[in-house]
């Protein structure tokens, strides 16, 4: 039993290390952060930004040349004391909303934001209808074999 527990602990550790790996690997370039908080802020910000070259990667993860340049740009603007919103504004002015993983809410993105809610409402309505119809069938009586149910 003990060895089994040990094995579990070991497995948990392996998984934990594996989960941490991407974070370690994303620190591609060596930037002179003045403290850990600044580095955290930088990582957090670049994780919200999309790399324009390989568009499934965030700026934090991408090793594309442009991503490197943009990380440097973000870092320098942080040094100049700009806040996250100002840096995002700087990038969207050049690369449009595309550069943000979190699209802002406006007329053109309303469908994107509300479609899940609309689908959820439609789904709930369908479930409600089905439940109501089932409830209408008397309890102790098996449902009549109808020709419509045979598929």
């Amino acid at each position, binding site marked *: 039993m003990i060895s089994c527990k040990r094995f579990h602990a070991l497995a948990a550790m392996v998984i934990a290390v594996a989960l941490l790996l991407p974070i370690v690997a994303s620190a591609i370039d060596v930037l002179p952060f003045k403290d850990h908080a600044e580095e955290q802020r930088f990582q957090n910000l670049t994780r919200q930004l999309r790399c*324009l*070259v390989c*568009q499934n990667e965030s700026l934090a993860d991408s090793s594309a*040349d*442009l991503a490197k*340049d*943009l990380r440097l*740009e973000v870092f320098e603007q942080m040094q100049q004391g700009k806040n996250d919103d100002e840096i995002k504004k700087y990038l*969207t*002015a*050049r*690369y*449009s909303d*595309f*550069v943000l993983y979190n699209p802002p809410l406006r007329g053109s993105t309303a469908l994107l934001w509300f479609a899940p809610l609309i689908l959820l409402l439609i789904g709930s309505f369908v479930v409600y209808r089905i439940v109501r119809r089932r409830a209408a069938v008397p309890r102790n009586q098996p449902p009549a074999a109808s020709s*419509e149910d045979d*598929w």
Partner: protein
Amino acid sequence: MNSRYVPLIGFALVAGLLGFGIHYMRNNSMNEVPSPLIGKPAPAFDLPLLDQPDKRLSNADLSGKPYLLNVFASWCFACRDEHPVLMAEGKALGIPIIGFNYKDEPDDAKRWLSQFGDPYSVVIADREGRVAIDFGVYGAPESFLVDGKGIIRYKRIGAITPEIVAFELKPRLAAMKEEGS
């Protein structure tokens, strides 16, 4: 309605949605990042010339006349496809084509131009790629059509083809001429 057909209708809806998706992706490149700079003034730049690094070219030197800014690099494969088009049709556009050498070794760029020909009025070099960020460049080739007032009128992401010249560049150039800009 016979509920026996519900799965069929569901299938048809999903198939229709996926079919539309494929059709849409074919006609609209989803990788293209729309430029927010169209209709806005071209970003300010002041860059050294490729062949005379002590001389520089800036927006101010160009104001008053339209130009085509073509982002290229010797490391860029698609630029090789584009290059013959610029060589053949560049002159007929009637505006200067300014080469924007993007993150390139000057020697490589010079060799590239002497090997394939030089369609440019002047070539400026952005080795660091910092000015390119201001232009929203994210690859090469890219081209910007700038009018006499310094406004970006059109951006081409990817190679310029004879079709782009005929259907995108020339009509806009004609319109710009009519406006007198």
